């Protein structure tokens, strides 16, 4: 009879935290160069070597970030609190201009035109690149005026019937029309949180944007209102490019085609969303999305 190898206890590898260990095949934590494909073909927006500073250069919040935003795509921006997601998002429509002591370097172009060129007027730029905030912020006006206001300012409507049409169309696209069509004259602030957020989306859509920036648009909403917004985002990408900041990994994986992971001002990893969440390339990305100590 042949001998069997004796039963030996397999070594137990648990109980020894290796916080600085790099897992098989991953880029180690201290390598802060972006991994993944930053560019897409024929992008809507292109960011090249973007730096953003606060406090007159004292604090660097975004460090040499390059990435493209494609046409008809949803790109999710994720990362720990304070990593610079909102800062980067605001750079995309020059909202940082209003912050005293904030400076943006590098090149950010919309359809090949540098949005930081001297001849760019930020008012139409912010219509082209609209923004939806974390906290719904309807104007203290009627539902109707909330939607019509921007379009009037930008001269997108000539008369009241055109305005009526635009308001109806925008509210329909934002999936809010059926709920508010009988009370358009009532204040927007009287709507529920989820409805207010859709009102803000309708307001953004009404001025014919090319890109919609969303900074944690669902963080104050319940799962149903969130699902409605997510479904809406899915629809909207037929016509617009959408960049969304979210703290929900599940949300990012549900709605986006590409995901960018930021860490302390660096763009660490960018790539197809499926890949980022199933098989990330960088240790920092993996630690963040799996909820491990960084």
């Amino acid at each position, binding site marked *: *009879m*042949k*001998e*069997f*190898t004796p*039963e*030996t206890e*397999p*070594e*137990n*590898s*648990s*109980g*020894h*935290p*290796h*916080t600085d260990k790099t*897992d*098989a*095949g991953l880029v180690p934590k201290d390598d802060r160069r972006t991994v993944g494909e930053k560019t897409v073909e024929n992008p809507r927006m292109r960011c090249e070597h973007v730096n953003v500073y606060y406090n007159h250069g004292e604090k660097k919040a975004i460090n040499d970030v390059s990435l493209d935003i494609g046409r008809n795509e949803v790109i999710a921006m994720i990362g720990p609190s304070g990593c610079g997601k909102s800062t980067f998002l605001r750079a995309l429509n020059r909202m940082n201009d209003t912050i005293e002591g904030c400076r943006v370097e590098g090149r950010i172009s919309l359809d090949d035109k540098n949005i930081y060129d001297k001849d760019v007027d930020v008012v139409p730029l912010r219509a082209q690149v609209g923004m939806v905030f974390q906290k719904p912020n309807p104007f203290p006006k009627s539902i109707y005026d909330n939607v019509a206001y921007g379009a009037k300012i930008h001269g997108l409507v000539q008369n009241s019937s055109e305005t009526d049409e635009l308001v109806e169309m925008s509210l329909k696209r934002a999936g809010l029309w059926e709920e508010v069509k009988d009370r358009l004259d009532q204040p927007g602030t009287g709507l529920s949180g989820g409805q207010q957020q859709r009102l803000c989306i309708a307001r953004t859509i009404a001025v014919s944007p090319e890109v919609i920036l969303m900074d944690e648009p669902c963080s104050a909403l319940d799962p149903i209102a969130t699902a409605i917004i997510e479904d809406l985002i899915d629809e909207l990408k037929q016509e617009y490019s959408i960049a969304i900041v979210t703290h929900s*990994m*599940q949300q990012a*994986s549900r709605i986006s085609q590409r995901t960018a992971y930021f860490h302390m001002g660096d763009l660490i990893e960018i790539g197809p969303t499926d890949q980022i*969440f*199933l*098989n*990330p390339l960088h240790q920092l*990305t*993996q*630690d963040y*999305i*799996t*909820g*491990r*100590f960084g």
Partner: protein
Amino acid sequence: MQNHIVKSFDEEIEHLKSEIITMAKACSSQLEKSVIALHRMDKDLAAKVVKDDRKINDFQREIEDNAVRYLAKRQPMAIDLRYLLSAMKISYELERVGDNAENIAAAVRSMAETISSEAIDSIVDMAGICKIMLHDLIDAFSELDTDKSIAVWKRDTDINARFLQVKSLVVQEAQANGGCFLHDGYQLIHMARCCERVGDHLKNIAEDIHYIATGDPDIRQAMNS
């Protein structure tokens, strides 16, 4: 696999890991007993192996239930997601290893007690290689060690070679012994076939471990590079 901010998730993964290791050891022991039964023509031991297969099936159900529960509860990403999905797959492969041990034992029960065949040693040999592979897989799984899982994956060729050996041995012996050897000869080839299948399942487990560790579903690529 540790270091989650939520410590209870670490505990769940640790629990799943120990369940899989326990199941792998149980499968190893079933396989060992089945060939000891063959070697000694011990039909009582063979009967026990057949009966104990139920326990292996219970292990699998338990592991699958836990993995599904953790998936639903944690909605894991990246390596954690791969781990839970692969844990389910590994438990399935182990369950099939157990089935093959059971099949070997069942065959022992149907054979003539007076049988003498050189093929028996080769089958015991095959099971011995499987046991070593399983042992190494437990290490590879505990440490998510891709080198070890690749080494196990490669060993499957040894088993395949021995299977062919058993086949030709049995054919020779059948020719020498005539009709009375037919039933037992068939059983021996069937047992060797079972060991060969065990090797395939172990190879699949090696691939699963490689996938957990690297996210790469194709272990062959890793070996080429």
